[in-house]
């Protein structure tokens, strides 16, 4: 009985101790797996501690194993990267806030284009440019707030105190007055336009009446005759043009005298030969004139 008590108590205690140790290690180190080590050095790592995730391009590839504060104020951070992941050479490490609860992670950003080589165990990953944190954003908001304040005071000074606002008010009042005047002018113009339209309508009616007179009819008959003559002339011109086209076609095909003149090369060759002979004859005459010109007076 006593032995059974000892065994059961021993089993319970052992189980509790194992659960305690494994649970603490799992929570603190972010897992029970052992990866290969990489190092990084940061100037600022708020809330950075062991067990926090290491992200490569946003994917969890390991955990922070250890954070040591150096004498020079830098943080030496030991990263444990899971064996199945490779960190491309040239990747940079930054401390990034994750979520809204103040937790952070070490973000590894690979270079573009990604090189074929990877960091070896115990290599040091260079530090990248950290993204703006809440303090930086707040300081920018502060500076914007200061600018807005300066702008507001300038507006107060220039617009309200210097009387610009009053001038604007007067301008608006003047504009209203001008607008009323313009409306009057427009109404007058509208009345004039209506009267002009009325006069135009009357003129058009009168012109319509004039179209029935004999003079207009004669003018129209003359116009029709001129149009007919023009049509005839155009037809004649078309026929002449067709004849010329036909003649040109015949000439182009070498028919007739003109065609042969234009297309037959025989005449050209004969003429060419004749000119050359004439040239040689002329040259011979110049060289030996007595051969051809023999003038005897007596």
């Amino acid at each position, binding site marked *: 009985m006593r032995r059974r008590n000892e065994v059961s108590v021993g089993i319970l205690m052992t189980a509790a101790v194992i659960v305690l140790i494994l*649970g603490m290690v799992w929570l603190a180190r972010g897992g029970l797996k052992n990866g290969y080590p990489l190092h990084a050095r940061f100037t600022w790592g708020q809330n950075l501690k062991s067990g926090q995730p290491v992200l490569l391009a946003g994917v969890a590839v390991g955990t922070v194993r250890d954070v040591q504060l150096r004498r020079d104020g830098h943080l030496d951070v030991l990263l444990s990267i899971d064996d199945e992941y490779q960190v491309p050479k040239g990747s940079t490490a930054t401390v990034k806030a994750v979520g809204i609860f103040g937790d952070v992670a070490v973000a590894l950003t690979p270079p573009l284009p990604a090189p074929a080589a990877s960091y070896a165990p115990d290599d040091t990953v260079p530090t990248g440019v950290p993204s703006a944190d809440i303090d930086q954003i707040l300081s920018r908001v502060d500076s914007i707030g200061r600018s807005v304040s300066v702008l507001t005071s300038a507006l107060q000074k220039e617009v309200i105190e210097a009387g610009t606002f009053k001038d604007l008010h007067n301008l608006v009042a003047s504009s209203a007055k001008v607008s009323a005047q313009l409306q009057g002018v427009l109404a007058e113009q509208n009345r004039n336009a209506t009267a002009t339209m009325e006069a135009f309508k009357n003129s058009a009616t009168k012109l319509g009446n004039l179209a029935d007179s004999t003079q207009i009819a004669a003018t129209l008959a003359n116009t029709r005759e001129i149009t007919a003559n023009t049509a005839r002339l155009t037809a004649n011109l078309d026929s002449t043009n067709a004849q010329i086209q036909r003649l040109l076609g015949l000439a182009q095909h070498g028919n007739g005298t003109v065609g042969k003149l234009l297309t037959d090369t025989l005449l050209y060759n004969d003429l060419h030969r004749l000119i050359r002979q004439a040239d040689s004859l002329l040259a011979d005459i110049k060289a030996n004139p007595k051969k051809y010109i023999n003038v005897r007076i007596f």
Partner: protein
Amino acid sequence: MFRDIGLRTYFFRDIARGFGDPATYVPETLRQMKMMGVDSVPITVIVAAFIGAVIALQVRYQILPGVQLSIVGLASRLMIVLELGPLLTGLVLTGRVGGRMTAEIGTMRVTEQIDALETLAYDPVAFLVVPRFLAGTIMLPTLAILADAVGLLSAYFVSVRVTHITPQDFIAGLRLGYEGFQIFYSLLKAMMFGMAIALVCSYEGYITEAGAEGVGRSTARAVVISSVTILVLDALTATVLGPLLQA
């Protein structure tokens, strides 16, 4: 009231004296450890499992839309490890173990078995109280570890299976802002609760009077005082050690 304080002071003195006689309390300590620890595993596991599940469900359904879901893991860990794991284990064991402890010692008192031990030159405190004190001090943290683990596992399974939180979200929350001191805090509280249960219940049994009715009255009183003591200790530890838990 001052008499009560004096009697308790004498009782604590007797316990301290009893530690000098290991031959008397060591064999009994193992039996008490088995009774308090091993026999309480089922009830501890059941309570922790349901508490973990309820915490996960409540947190999941109470968070506002847009809040990141890893808060379920974070809230489950903080509530179970820091508070409900050790507290509910302590309260459950007050009823299950404390009442039994008072009834056992009280019955021995009213049936004059304690007087008989004194007659046989046995130190009754070393034989009856010290083993229970040691067993409570050791086994409550042990059970609290199991309660924490079972509660978190239960919260995980309910979150993933019922409320469709991804395992990654839950585990990310579980690890968020974790400090080893949180586990130490949980175990320290459990240890204090174990000591309180053993001391209060043993004392109430040890001073039992007036027969069977007195045993019943002592048992009820022991359970009530132990429960209140546990809650007071819980508040005190939160007040004193709480600042150390700040992120």
